[in-house]
């Protein structure tokens, strides 16, 4: 047994974390009573400078320090340094960082206590925290039909297990389906993705539930009851032949979600020609019949009897599954929040998803880069008649690495911006392209080489993010500091592309409560262990894959999709699923600690 007399515990409260979900007074009394530690300092006595720590170490003759709190790792260097200064072993500083164990949900006081008990007895939490198993239902629910969800579904279904793939929109494919090329290989994104989408549709083990949302999750690991709401599609998926006569006759228009608002679609529509399922659906918000009770043009035009039912209502379906994979992806940053870049104000300032569509051979202009223009009804769209830009500037880090918006790096923007430059030069060889960047983060296999290649292609790389975009004489003026040259540059361009970052999906908080898995302070789902279990969660039977865990590019999302599938297949083969860290009780941890210390 460790000598607790010479152990000092410091309860740390991170000054920027408000509100802190933990009750530190309760932890204090727990340490005093149960763990038998006498030298404890609560967060309001926390020694912030070297002198105070030295004083505490010397008066109490401490030779082991424990710092416990949310994000306690931030002060570790200070304490290790002081230990070395006082001639003690700097390694004898133990950090108990609660958030590393998913303590961002408020009801986790027992886990905090368990972690403290382990730290005081110097036994790793992972050794004592062994969860029980439960029998598993072999069916799996995958939430989200993007590339990560598709990959996970296919892996599991090809292993002969049943998969329910729930997708919120009318088609699977996610964000990747809208992209033209992938980086750094410049493969055609659709050529990789669409066969997989078709495979999902044809696999007998996959129940594809498009235009559906998970609204309730009950039950325990291995045996979840999930209520899925089938939103009223108003078109019978079984009988629709996808002929498109209805859309031809439909008088109502709305901006196309798939084309990132760069074209208009009808109220009855198919998201894109290769959609899976390749069936029409009706957008209730723009449908004239649903708003006014008059129209039914689609019903009259439809050649299949009773295929369109405009009065169809939402329907709740209950399914039983053993495992759940969350693959809900991300939400693009809303560029108009950064007013200085003029998105939404100047017509030729585009966000990257719009530009992606503009470059796409199946996009609004068939891959020609054109100015934005107004159609007859006044909608801002892209078509092939408005002329080509000659100078295009791409601004990196819009909404990322910025404390006013999102402080994290979105990981993909540097690379897709480089890809944009390449594609622009491919389509408009005479054009000038400028990349305004802060740091070029070409971190993956082949990425740095890709960066070198783009530089050689003649793209102007300007280190220094520009501050604002103004419109002057019909051109867009960018003022920026070229940090490497040490000069100010005023650059007049025709088109500005904002490389917007990735944000956690808007449903993340709702799902987090529903599934009982925590989100990080930024809003991404929290993994069980960043290094060795990146697709696992603290709750048994729930895995995750793709960008819902954090910003991620396509290869990483696919890898995580397979990894999450491996966790699921493992539990199906074993017939059991671990109940997860969240079910481990404090008393179980305490008794395990006792056993282990007796052995010692």
């Amino acid at each position, binding site marked *: 047994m460790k000598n607790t007399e010479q152990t000092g515990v410091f309860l740390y409260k991170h000054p920027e974390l408000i509100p802190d979900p933990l009750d530190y007074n309760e932890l204090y009394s727990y340490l005093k009573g149960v763990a038998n530690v006498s030298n404890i300092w609560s967060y309001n006595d926390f020694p912030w400078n070297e002198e105070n720590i030295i004083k505490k170490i010397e008066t109490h003759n401490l030779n082991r320090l424990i710092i416990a709190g949310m994000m306690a790792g931030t002060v570790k260097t200070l304490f290790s340094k002081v230990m070395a200064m006082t001639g003690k072993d700097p390694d004898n500083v133990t950090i108990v960082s609660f958030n590393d164990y998913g303590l961002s949900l408020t009801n986790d006081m027992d886990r905090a206590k368990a972690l403290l008990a382990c730290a005081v007895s110097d036994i790793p939490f992972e050794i004592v925290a062994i969860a029980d198993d439960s029998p598993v239902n072999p069916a799996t629910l995958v939430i989200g039909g993007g590339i990560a969800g598709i990959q996970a579904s296919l892996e599991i279904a090809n292993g002969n297990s049943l998969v329910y793939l729930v997708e919120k929109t009318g088609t699977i494919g996610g964000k990747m389906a809208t992209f033209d090329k992938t980086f750094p290989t410049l493969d055609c994104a659709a050529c990789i993705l669409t066969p997989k989408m078709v495979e999902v549709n044809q696999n007998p083990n996959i129940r594809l539930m498009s235009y559906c949302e998970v609204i309730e999750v009950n039950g325990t690991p291995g045996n979840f009851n999930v209520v899925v709401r089938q939103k009223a599609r108003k078109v019978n998926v079984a009988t629709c032949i996808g002929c498109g006569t209805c859309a031809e006759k439909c008088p109502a228009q709305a901006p196309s979600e798939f084309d990132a608002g760069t074209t208009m679609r009808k109220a009855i529509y198919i998201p894109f020609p290769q959609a899976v399922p390749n069936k029409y659906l009706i957008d209730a918000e723009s449908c004239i019949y649903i708003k006014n009770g008059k129209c039914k043009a689609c019903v009259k035009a439809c050649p299949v009897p009773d295929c369109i039912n405009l009065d169809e209502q939402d329907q709740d379906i209950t399914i039983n599954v053993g495992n759940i994979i969350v693959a809900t992806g991300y939400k693009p940053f809303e560029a108009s929040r950064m007013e200085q870049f003029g998105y939404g104000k100047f017509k030729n300032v585009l966000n990257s998803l719009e530009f992606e569509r503009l470059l796409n051979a199946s996009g609004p202009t068939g891959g020609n880069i054109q100015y934005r223009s107004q159609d007859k009804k006044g909608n801002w769209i892209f078509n092939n008649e408005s002329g080509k830009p000659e100078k295009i500037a791409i601004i990196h880090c819009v909404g990322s690495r910025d404390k006013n918006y999102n402080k994290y790096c979105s990981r993909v923007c540097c690379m897709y911006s480089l890809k944009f430059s390449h594609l622009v030069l491919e389509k408009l060889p005479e054009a000038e392209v400028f990349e305004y960047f802060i740091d070029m983060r070409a971190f993956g296999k082949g990425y740095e080489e890709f960066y070198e290649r783009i530089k050689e292609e003649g793209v102007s790389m300007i280190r220094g993010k520009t501050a604002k975009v103004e419109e002057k004489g019909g051109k867009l003026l960018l003022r920026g500091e070229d940090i490497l040259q040490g*000069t100010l540059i005023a650059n007049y361009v025709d088109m500005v592309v904002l490389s917007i970052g990735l944000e956690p999906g808007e449903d993340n908080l709702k799902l987090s409560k529903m599934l009982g898995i925590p989100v990080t302070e930024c809003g991404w789902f929290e993994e069980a262990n960043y290094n060795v279990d990146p697709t696992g969660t603290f709750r048994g039977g729930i895995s995750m894959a793709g960008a819902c865990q954090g910003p991620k590019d396509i290869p990483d999302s696919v890898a995580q999709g397979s990894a999450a599938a491996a966790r699921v297949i493992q539990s199906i083969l074993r017939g059991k699923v671990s109940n997860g860290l969240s079910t481990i009780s404090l008393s179980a941890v305490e008794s395990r600690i006792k056993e282990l210390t007796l052995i010692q």
Partner: protein
Amino acid sequence: MSIRVQPDLRNELIKYGIGDWNACYHCGTCTAMCPLSEEGFLFPRKKIRLMQMGLKGPIESSVEPWLCYYCGDCTKTCPRDANPGELMMSLRRYLTSLYDWTGLSKKFYTSETWELGFILFFASLVVITFLFILPSFGIKFDTTLTAQGGVRVNSFAPIGIIEPFDWSMAFVVASLLISNIFRMYYKIIWKNSTTKVSLWVHIREFWLLIFNFAVQPKFSKCDDKKYWLSHWFLMSGYTIMFIVIVVFLKWFQTEEILPFYDPQRLLGYYATFGLLFGLGFAIIGRIIHKDIKFKFSHVSDWLFLAMLTGTVVTGILIHIFRINGMPMATYFSYIAHMAILVPMILIEVPFSKWSHLAYRPFAAYFHQLKKHAVPK
């Protein structure tokens, strides 16, 4: 040429202001945002870089901190909360302490004890003079009134005594400031071993000094004009007051109560209005804490505002009490007025925040000289 690096420069600078300047990752947003930053004189990012690298020499010889008028746009848009605007402010305080050869400026900026001690010392000196020393020379608190019913202020504070005192104080302050300006000139222009500026350029550009002193044209280039306007009222009010008190005291401090429209009173009222407007704007701004410009307040900022407000308020009181025939109230307001005014002039003008009245126009002048510098 070797460059001396001072790694603890940040620790020294942090005494002059608040900012997490090491957080800067050099995206250049601040420089690009700044309407005053120009080719060859880029700030604030370059100054942050110098600070991070501990290059005291280049900081000492830079004119850029004086070209910034702190609109706060850089701090507002900084993605790292590195507070570049406040760095520029802190650099101005730091440079003031470097220009000052007496070393008092550094003491006043970094130690509140020194600053408050000096203020109290001079304030008590003024009070002792009026209460004990002057009466011992036969000057009395005359309670009789003039024919108009006004207070006989000139018998209490004879112009023959006050005026020489004003002049000697102005002389001390001016000689300190001028010697510091020569040090500033030496650091910014003279010491530069690679370029030189011809005498003709020195003469030709001299008008800039007066122009910049009078209207602060650079300040008006900031996107938000209200700061410039309120500063201009404050500055013009103060300059007028200073001139009438030091140069035209005989004309300004009269016992006769002149009609309301007399230039003497009108000028006084304008100056008071200008001062109150500028002060009110700054004080309310610093209390509300919303504008970036007023968000971070160093002790020296508050002290300056408090003393100037004290001076203005007691000045108004003297005027009201005098024309309403309240002798004792007038005299005590006069003592309070002088007890605040004297330490303010002695401390703020040569050593602290107020020295910018000289450094800013000279910096605009030096900036122009640097632009016309030719390689040696």
